């Protein structure tokens, strides 16, 4: 996927200044999600659950080669065709070949960030396959030709009125339809698509090694339909999605739902072992699992960032993030946005490609408190910042200013002198000329220094 990450600052600024409705929709939706998440955490011993989940994921990631081969073996025993894709191009190629071999004309899709990451839809369309997104939010965005703006609620940046206008224009629904009527209009189109599609494409929340089970969580039922009605099902699964045991799912299904939406569990969970062979089962004849690397082994090799591979894609950190809330996901310029994007993208894409995301954070720490697998996001952001500094990826003025600060701060005499000069210049407007403060002053009144420093007050005596 072509990224526009390097444009983050400009696009975020533009979004805030010219699209206030995006900020309003995103803020409202994420605060509501976050409140539900907090309540759902309070209901259980969230601290213990999160530590447990962290430990299971760490165990899995430090034994990943074993679990990958075990999963492959089980999947094949279940009759699933397993494919390995080193990068996005291979993954696309694998899926288009499966489609070609299966004489697929139409495909329905469940929401999957991985398929966004590898740009799957354009590749399928290029070989003449009609692809329809079936998650309601993704469907809205497909009609608009926009990428998702949130891992979980891809269209949270759209207001009811925007969806009304879109559906009235494209589906002929009533221009004043309520959400129920709008959903009904979409259901009408999509129900037909489910019944006629040749292929269903999904991601995978988890892949259980001991049973070869692909687990999928959702609320709408579109994933159950996508994996049940078409004769071919393809699940694209990142190699970090492994879990050792079926019973591990018990904790992870509950924790993911609580973190994501505050529910005890998703309305629908599919535990998929393979193609339908037993009597009474009307499921797919062919099931394929594509194991995708696409930069994940680079992240795994990183001494710190590997912890980001514990990510469940629940979106809790986005909902908790006051930076994300101001713009939504589009400003970040890549499918993984918000706090997790800011630590994952540098690992997946290379730090240069992901600048300035490690700096797009006030380091407030709300993301860590929300994260169900305790990814130390603030610490990882700092780690990427250090690497950016080492690689000279930050502006020279900034580096010079910080080097200057250190020189002054380790020489008390010089520090005091600089402080007194600052106090005299303060309020004169001279401070505006200091490097980088111009931008600060565009949005804020510059602070007025105290007339006398504390040091001076102390010397005179404090009563």
């Amino acid at each position, binding site marked *: 996927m072509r990224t526009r990450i390097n444009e983050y600052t400009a696009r975020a600024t533009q979004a805030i200044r010219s699209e206030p409705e995006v900020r309003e929709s995103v803020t409202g939706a994420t605060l509501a999600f976050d409140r539900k998440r907090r309540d759902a955490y309070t209901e259980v011993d969230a601290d213990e659950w999160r530590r447990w989940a962290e430990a299971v994921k760490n165990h899995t990631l430090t034994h990943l080669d074993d679990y990958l081969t075990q999963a492959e073996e089980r999947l094949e025993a279940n009759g699933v065709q397993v494919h390995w894709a080193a990068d996005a191009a291979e993954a696309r190629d694998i899926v288009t070949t499966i489609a070609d071999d299966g004489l697929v004309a139409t495909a329905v899709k469940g929401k999957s960030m991985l398929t966004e990451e590898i740009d799957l839809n354009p590749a399928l369309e290029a070989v003449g396959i009609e692809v329809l997104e079936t998650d309601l939010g993704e469907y809205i965005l497909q009609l608009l030709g926009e990428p998702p703006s949130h891992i979980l609620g891809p269209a949270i940046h759209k207001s009811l009125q925007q969806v009304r206008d879109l559906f009235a224009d494209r589906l002929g629904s009533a221009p004043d339809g309520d959400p129920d009527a709008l959903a009904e209009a979409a259901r009408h189109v999509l129900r037909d698509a489910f019944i006629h599609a040749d292929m269903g494409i999904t991601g995978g929340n988890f892949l259980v090694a001991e049973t070869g089970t692909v687990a999928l969580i959702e609320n709408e039922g579109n994933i159950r339909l996508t994996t049940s009605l078409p004769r071919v099902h393809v699940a694209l699964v990142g190699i970090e999605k492994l879990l050792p045991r079926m019973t591990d799912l018990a904790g992870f299904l509950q924790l993911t739902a609580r973190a994501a939406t505050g529910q005890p569990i998703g*309305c629908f969970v599919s535990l998929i072992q393979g193609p339908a062979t037993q009597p009474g089962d009307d*499921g797919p004849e062919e099931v394929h699992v594509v194991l995708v690397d696409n930069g994940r082994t680079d992240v795994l*090799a990183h001494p710190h960032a590997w912890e980001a591979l514990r990510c469940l894609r629940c979106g809790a950190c986005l909902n908790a993030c006051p930076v994300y809330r101001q713009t939504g996901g589009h400003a970040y310029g890549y499918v993984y946005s918000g706090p997790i994007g800011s630590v994952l993208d540098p690992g997946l894409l290379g730090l240069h490609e992901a600048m300035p995301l490690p700096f797009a954070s006030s380091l407030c720490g709300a993301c860590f408190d929300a994260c169900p697998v305790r990814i130390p996001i603030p610490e990882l952001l700092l780690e990427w910042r250090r690497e950016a500094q080492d690689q000279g990826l930050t502006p020279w003025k900034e580096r010079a200013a910080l080097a200057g600060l250190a020189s002054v701060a380790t020489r008390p005499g010089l520090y005091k002198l600089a402080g007194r000069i600052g106090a005299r210049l303060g309020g004169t407007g001279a401070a505006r000329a200091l490097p980088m403060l111009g931008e600060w002053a565009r949005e804020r009144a510059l602070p007025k220094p105290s007339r006398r420093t504390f040091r001076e007050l102390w010397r005179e005596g404090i009563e």
Partner: protein
Amino acid sequence: MSTARAGSRERILSRVARATAGRERTLHPGCLGTPVAADPVAEFVKRFTGQGGEVVEGEGTQSAAVWLTGFLRGLDKEVTGVAVGADVPAELRPQLPVVAAAHAGAGISVAWAAVAETGSLILPSTGTRAVQLLPPVHIVWVPEGRVFARLEEALRELPDELPATVGLHSAPSKSADIGQTVVTGVHGPGRCIAVLA
């Protein structure tokens, strides 16, 4: 059958092995101990209805078919044709015409079990997926004594020979993708009714 393009499988596995080579290999922490409800049936009812599901209790299998027929006829939108899962025994089938799932007013299934802590119905795919997913109303029989307190117990007790797919249904189909307002019955059933034997 696997496809391994230009040795991708080996390349990925060796990269994984290299990436984790020097790292401390940590242990699996074992099972997560979630609380056990004193009364799993009551907990199931609370959780399932809390998510928008509906529960009917105390309808034994004796006159089940008769009761179900009356229940379906009495719904707001009277059901005249039903879809029935392949594994639903004769005594649990309503006395109504059986039609294709896409045209049925209700789908009738039998759960393998229910789970209290998550309010979930466990549905094997041998019970015919279209029946579980396409009709606007889904009615699920839960056999007596088949309510597990915890999800982990239920997953542990799944048969060794797993069906192609196991579905957990814990609520009607929902979405909040349009203006952050919750709508039900988007793709799957808009009503999900668990009947506890």
